[in-house]
């Protein structure tokens, strides 16, 4: 099935998908990924500024996908995990270059840019962050 994703929506999120750009509240110090429009702690007193998240973290939790959604069928079994970054922010991402059986909570991982999906044979190729066991 060819499913073309809206180009502006993808394009606006390149900083987040390619460089893990989130933000940080200068008032309370909390980091956010994906970036927030307002700080949920400080509300109108919050001062958000762009912040490139650290590219390292550890596995907070994970699951092994054996029955995948459309477009991901060829990748099963694959790992989807919640990664706690050094800033304490949690990110959900695929873990690649790993045997699912080797996964464990607390495993150290680092971010890599990988192909996430393709909009059919003629459409755009979508790239973004995944994580691999730290080498």
């Amino acid at each position: 099935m060819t499913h073309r994703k809206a180009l502006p929506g993808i394009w606006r999120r390149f900083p987040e998908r390619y460089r893990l750009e989130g933000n940080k509240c200068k008032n309370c110090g909390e980091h956010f990924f994906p970036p927030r429009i307002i700080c949920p702690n400080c509300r109108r007193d919050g001062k958000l500024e762009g912040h490139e998240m650290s590219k390292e973290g550890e596995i907070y939790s994970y699951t092994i996908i054996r029955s995948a959604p459309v477009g991901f069928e060829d990748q099963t079994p694959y790992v989807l995990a919640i990664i706690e970054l050094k800033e304490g922010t949690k990110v959900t991402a695929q873990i690649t270059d790993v045997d699912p059986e080797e996964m464990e909570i607390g495993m150290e991982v680092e971010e890599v840019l990988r192909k996430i999906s393709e909009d059919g044979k003629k459409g755009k190729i979508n790239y973004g962050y995944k994580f691999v066991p730290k080498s």
Partner: protein
Amino acid sequence: MSDILGYGAYIPKNRIKIRKIAKVWGKNPELIEQKLGLEEKAVPDQDEDTITIATQAARNAVKHADINPQKIGAIYTGSESHPYAVKPTSATVGEAIGATPEMTAADYEFACKAGTAGMQNCMALVESGKIDYGMAIGADTAQSKPGGALEYAAAAGGAAYIIGEKDGIAEIEDTYSFTTDTPDFWRRKEQPYPEHGGRFTGKPAYFRHVINATKGLLKKTNQELENFDHIVFHQPNTKFPTKAAKKLGIPKEKIEKGLIVRKVGNTYSGATLLGLASVLDDAEPGEKILVTSFGSGAGSDSFSIKVKKHANNPRPVKKFVERKKYVNYGEYTKLARKLKR
């Protein structure tokens, strides 16, 4: 003159043994391994392509050079497997390393030598004072017809170099190129796999260009081969660079450090640059390196490089060569998208 400020390598984790490919196609595995001097080759994963390989190499180069990526004024990516026919790999790499938007970018294609052509362009822009830093990348996920001779070698990998005016780990003293129209290997538009001229890829193509570019560089810079501690040639297999060295009277030990093809295969645009990175990883200050790439079609770029300090690269080529997971031929055909459906 230009300096190499830093460099980064990247090789996918998957490997297939050459003997497994030979066995599937009813060839003598030992003979193929021995003839080509290849043991295994790197295969990209499903989510890897030239853009992701180039990006990982570029990120490693930025880390190694420890520079502000915003100061990179040009990115050139050489490859014969750019994921898009029209839409630049270099722009995505620039975005992913945080070098955009004030930079120029273009993708190059000259079979296996497009990466070194990018390096020459970066040198020109740096030396003319147009940019502070330039990045040249050679990366490929090489295609090969199932059962064809290229299938034993066509591999995936890449390397990125950051070129600046001074204060680098090595100085690029000079460069010389040798180019002719030689129909040794090509891929027509919309064709999935390249064609090659069999034995014609040897004498009139690889050897003529590699040897003439190397000799031309020596003449231009008034040097002898004896001045160099390490020689790196393009490595489609172990046999070709070893034979070129023999023809030029270069002792075997001078090419060994830069010869990584046996364990990773021919990474096409990445091959010469990965070979150089492997030498730079352990090079001593004062050592001299001669590098000659080769691209079918055909041409060679030669470089005279002088090492200024220890590279201390935290991600040496060896680390990527040793990081591996074996796949069988069935898995390989799936990963390389050779199955029709």
